């Protein structure tokens, strides 16, 4: 197809807005026509995802209009809120203070400046190599060796999940496969669509089919995840024309995205449980569940990014 970047974007985005609007109306209509407690619970699940969909769509439209730097800023804020939530869940000691200060006020800005500047060689190793070495040094400085390894590991995990992994989403927008120059944001939109919709489809299919609930997430069932994942993969294949991939390549990329997205969610749910899941007070809506909203993204973003770089960017 010979659509310009703007035209393709508006076509996809317009379709998306219609879809979410239809879903919102449907959920609203269902909510006013059911008194069944079980249905109400899954409607709430669905509604929170629809709202997240609106928010992501809005942020993305703003980011797209303002350019790739704005996209980096938006994801940097997401990283900040995710790491903030991670730290709030983790027991920390005064001796960890310096390492955490570095994590929040140095690592997040540096990582996203590197991403926005497209310095792939550096941001691919900045956290997994340099911070991996620097943080234990900083924390050893205080000579507090009580639970040293656990404490270091928690800071490193927090940074890897909420900064390194999440930052690979805006990095997708900076990619320029041959014949696809300047269309990076569209590839990011494609990736986000596949990840988010596989989650939404899985919740919807689980709610309507039920059967065996997943241990990691009681809101989803095995059958629901399989069907939802397949639907998202097929959608990802059908949208091949907005990517640099051919249809079968899009099929494989979408499969990789859906599978890693699901596994990432499973790992994050285990992380949260091992930290001791905590009931947030009501009214903590803005920050509550940032990690949960990003869980599909954490594992799949670096994988999608790397597969694209490895196979499509010479």
């Amino acid at each position: 197809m010979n659509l310009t970047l703007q035209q393709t974007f508006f076509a996809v985005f317009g379709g998306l807005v219609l879809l979410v609007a239809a879903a919102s109306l449907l959920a609203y209509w269902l909510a006013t026509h059911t008194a069944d407690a079980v249905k109400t619970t899954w409607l709430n699940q669905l509604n929170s995802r629809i709202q997240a969909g609106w928010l992501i769509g809005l942020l993305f439209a703003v980011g797209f209009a303002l350019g790739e730097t704005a996209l980096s800023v938006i994801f940097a804020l997401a990283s900040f809120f995710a790491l903030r939530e991670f730290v709030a869940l983790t027991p920390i000691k005064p001796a960890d203070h310096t390492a955490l200060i570095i994590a929040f006020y140095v690592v997040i800005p540096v990582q996203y400046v590197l991403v926005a500047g497209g310095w792939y060689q550096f941001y691919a190793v900045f956290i997994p190599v340099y911070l991996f070495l620097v943080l234990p040094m900083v924390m050893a400085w205080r000579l507090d060796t009580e639970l040293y390894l656990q404490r270091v590991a928690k800071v490193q995990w927090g940074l890897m999940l909420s900064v390194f992994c999440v930052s690979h989403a805006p990095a997708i927008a900076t990619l320029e496969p041959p014949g696809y120059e300047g269309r990076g944001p569209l590839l990011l939109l494609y990736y986000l669509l596949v990840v988010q919709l596989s989650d939404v489809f899985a919740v919807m299919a689980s709610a309507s089919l039920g059967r065996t609930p997943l241990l990691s997430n009681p809101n989803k069932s095995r059958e629901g995840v399989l069907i939802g994942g397949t639907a998202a993969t097929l959608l990802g294949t059908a949208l091949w024309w907005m990517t640099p991939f051919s249809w079968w390549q899009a099929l494989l990329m979408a499969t990789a995205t859906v599978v890693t997205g699901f596994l990432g969610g499973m790992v994050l749910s285990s992380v949260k449980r091992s930290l001791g899941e905590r009931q947030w007070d009501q009214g903590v809506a803005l920050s509550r569940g940032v990690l949960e909203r990003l869980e599909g993204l954490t594992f799949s973003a670096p994988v999608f990014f790397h597969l694209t770089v490895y196979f499509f960017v010479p």
Partner: protein
Amino acid sequence: MPIFPVRFLPPIVWLVRLLVGAYPRWIGCAPTATQRIYFANHTSHMDTVVLWAALPGELRANTRPVAAKDYWDRGGIRGQIARDELNVVMVDRARDDPNADPLDPLREALENGFSLIIFPEGTRTPQPLPGQFRSGLFHLAMESPGVELIPVYIENLHRSMPKGALLPVPTICTVRFGAPLARIEGEEKESFLQRARDAVAGLAG
């Protein structure tokens, strides 16, 4: 051109919410314009700003934190925030003038109809539960029977900013407002202060 409600917030409130959340939970009372003394546990330098930022805007304008003169009454940004934003009531911990009652500025603020935020421990105790309360709260409570006494528990902040730290580690903290503390006729100072401390600790759960 304010588009988001966030833009209406003073920068200091906006910054505090970004860094440490400061989410209010009105458990035992509602955020109404009644004249009140909010008394809370004191674990870090951020407490004053955090409790103040957790109040709704219309209450903030009428509520003055009580804070140590030796820490807040300085030049630079700290003094500026204390004077212009928080409208702090300064207490002279060092007692430069031995004849002056350090509670006088607080009495004056109460007479002028302001609500107060006080930290009865008098100093920071970086631990989950508050230490012993000092007697200032008792005297104020007895002298102004019309003022509601609201216990407040600030959660999580001692982890965000341990003693000696310059910057807070971002986290999510909630500020819990309890039910007004009842005054009991003829109660001794010690038992009143113990009851006040228990009311704050009871919100820690």
